[in-house]
């Protein structure tokens, strides 16, 4: 482990720092998008009902809206899922970057250890 500590340079530390930030941001973005999707549900719901020319009072009853125009319910649901998907894509990319950077550190240290072992042997 001492040898590994010697090989772990400032460069690795910086890279690990970036990886950690990307990992944290991935979660933050995922949470923000889920909250946004939930938060936008009521306004989307009202907007779709108004653009179809239905009265606001009907908005309280999903089944009634569904019986008038099922597309309103589908539209709102799809909009909700699409917001979640966008968040998922961004979060996955950031999480992937985080894992990728960690793997690069790991590979670099492995190779350094390997090279050091070979030079010791010679």
């Amino acid at each position: 482990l001492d040898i590994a500590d010697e090989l772990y340079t400032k460069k690795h530390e910086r890279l690990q720092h970036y990886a950690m930030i990307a990992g944290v941001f991935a979660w933050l973005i995922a949470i923000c998008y889920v909250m946004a999707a939930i938060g936008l549900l009521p306004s989307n719901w009202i907007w779709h009902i108004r653009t179809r020319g239905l009265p606001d009072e009907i908005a309280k009853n999903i089944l009634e809206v569904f019986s008038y125009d099922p597309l309103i319910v589908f539209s709102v649901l799809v909009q909700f899922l699409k917001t979640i998907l966008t968040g998922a894509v961004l979060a996955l990319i950031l999480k992937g970057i985080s894992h990728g950077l960690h793997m690069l550190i790991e590979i670099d240290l492995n190779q350094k250890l390997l090279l050091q072992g070979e030079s010791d042997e010679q």
Partner: protein
Amino acid sequence: MSNDPIRRHVYAYLSEKSTEELLETWRKNDRFEWTGLAFDVIQELLIERGADIPGQNEPIWEYRAKDAINDDLEEPTIFYKPGQVVRLCEWINRVIIAAPVLFYTQELIRLPGYVDLIRAYLPDFFIRDLLAWVFALIYTNVVVVIGFLFIYFPLKGLATVLQILMDMDLRTRSSKLSYTAGE
């Protein structure tokens, strides 16, 4: 031997392996890890070496990196967990499947609106409705394909890079282990 350069390359690579290793690969029948060509070459090599060709297990078609890592990795990783990377790749594949379905659903819901909009721009003649539908369908498909490609390429690229990096890590790890074992 065949004139096919790929087959020659595979032959050269596999001929460096011991008969036991080849027999093990043959028996395991991991079709995700090895191609059909590799199995043909293994059979050819085993026959050349005079080995009895054993029966094969049921072919494995799925990616089992998680199992492989858990089985093979004698030294744990320090900076990342391979299982998490595999799970991430699985999630990426799920999102890649979900995205076009969602895009198509959304655009199909909007399709009547597009038809109305396009119809308003077309002059009044007998196939106006038909043309409006055709243009709306073309537009819908273009929107869905472009939207999907914007998601597909970064995610698929990321998943591929992660798998390559994981393979590289496993290779450097296994050569380090074999070096240590050699000592």
